């Protein structure tokens, strides 16, 4: 038993649990590939979604975030004012970005033709709505910042 632990790196129950999980996942994956047209597209979407998040979305927003932090706070991390300014900028930016990510097909009119055909409605209102929400988020955040600024100055 100890030799197994040393070689494998965990208790035998670990290996059993992993194999059970792989068996179920493998079965489900094979069913998905059996039952759909263009099964290769499933594999592409599965791998592509990991690449899209881990190697594109994350680096892009992390980089933008890093640049913003460096530009506003830099090394002056003791300045409460600068930290407040940073947060009043990045919170609305992140919320707006999240809405764009989730509702991208609506906002960018993707699938407009099929949507129009099945629902009788157009997607063309959503870009304007998203812009309005974004404007409200930034304006609200700026207003709160102005109020905090006055309080910080008073202290």
């Amino acid at each position, binding site marked *: 038993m100890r030799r197994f632990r040393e070689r*494998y*790196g*965990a208790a035998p129950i*670990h*290996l059993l*649990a*992993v194999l059970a*999980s*792989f068996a*179920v*996942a493998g*079965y*489900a*994956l094979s*069913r*998905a590939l059996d*039952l*759909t*047209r*263009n*099964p290769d*597209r*499933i594999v592409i*979407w*599965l*791998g592509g*979604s*990991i690449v899209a*998040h*881990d190697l594109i979305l*994350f680096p892009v927003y992390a980089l933008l975030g890093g640049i913003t932090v460096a530009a506003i706070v830099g090394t002056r*991390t003791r300045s*409460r004012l600068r*930290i407040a300014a*940073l*947060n009043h900028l990045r*919170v609305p930016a*992140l*919320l707006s970005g*999240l809405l764009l990510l*989730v*509702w991208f*097909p*609506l*906002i960018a009119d*993707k*699938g407009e033709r*099929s*949507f129009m*055909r*099945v*629902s*009788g*409605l157009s*997607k063309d*209102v*959503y870009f304007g*709505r*998203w812009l309005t*929400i974004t404007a409200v988020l930034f304006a609200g955040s700026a207003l709160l910042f102005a109020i905090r600024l006055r309080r910080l100055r008073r202290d």
Partner: protein
Amino acid sequence: MRLPAVGPFRRDFWRSPLRGPWLASALSSALLPLIAICAVTGFVSHWAYQPHLGGNAVFGGSAPGNGFDLYGLDWPTSPAWLYVATQGLHVITGLAAIPILLAKLWTVIPKLFENPPFRSPAHALERLSLLLLVGGSLFVFSTGVINIQVWYPFGFSFVPAHYYAAIVMLAALCLHVGLKLPVMRAAFRQRGVTRPLREDLRHTKPEPGLPGIVTSAPHAAAEPTLTRRALLGGVGAASAGLAVMTTGQVVGGPLAELAVLAPRGRGRGDGPNDFPINKTFAAANIPREKVGSDWRLLLHVTNERRAMLTREELLAMEQVTAELPIACVEGWSTTQTWSGVRLVDLARVAGVPDPSAVEVRSMQPRGALRSVTLGRGQVTHPEGMLALRVNGADLALDHGYPARVIVPALPGVHCTKWVGKMVFS
């Protein structure tokens, strides 16, 4: 085997002071119940289609084992809002989970660049399983979110892919929860379950990490610019915001106007037929003359025609009126006052006084759901009807004129429109 310590593979590359096992545990505690509800209601939705009846199975035929069809158990007809609730929960919890999932991935992403990448066979297998977990989750969430926005760029069949990818995700998730529960317990014991939420910016320190475990806690942390309370508060607000906006279109009616970024939340006017449409008459490709005065409802028992009724004859029969929701699998609903002929009365006309099922066929020339089988509870329900009118007016063409099926708690796509034929058994 060690990779060269460059870029993200360097231990001091990851500088955020907020990352660590406590933050990962806190986010997981919020994420897990949402995914659990989303998964259960997803399987419930599959059951609601009653894949064991007739040609209802969306994929794989009606043989047992094609999905968890609960082996022949009929979908209930009460309460009438059952499918509104289950499918609404599915879409709401799914959308609400997205900000938390993204925050969780942000928290643990340093572990993607762990160095050495494989410490033992056990570690390698665990990482392979994480590939399934992350890939499966991103697959299930992205296809679901895109599908409810009526965009189909994937090129594969949505239903089986979404369904079985969810099982891949859940298989990996069960293993993940089992393996990480001790880490979560250790993190909460080390830092307290809620204590880090009370720290202000001055007291926000990097997590120390856990002895003997590789964690996402930083080795060389930057000064904090955000408290953990603010981070989790922001994620929670984003999640709640998505949930509230979606609730509008789940519930329908005037609340739907709140759903400013939801595909089906929009009002169309004040007329009796001005409620959302899932599929327009134009999209159904039915020749115009088929819904004119020559339209007849054919009532069959297997291959034998038992009756042929005009719309006037149907309107002359006893009418039932009921206020019932129709709920779409995409997570929106609309409640209207329908009236028409009871399905059970039509069965009697066809010479079947005690029907066990009815297959309803639409006049649509194509489409997977143009023929649907309803079970005994549905065909005999006193409010299960072939609707002819809505809100006191004739059905509009877009809502299924000359006649459509309305049954309490029946999923929207099974409320067949433009009905041409009913086969009782």
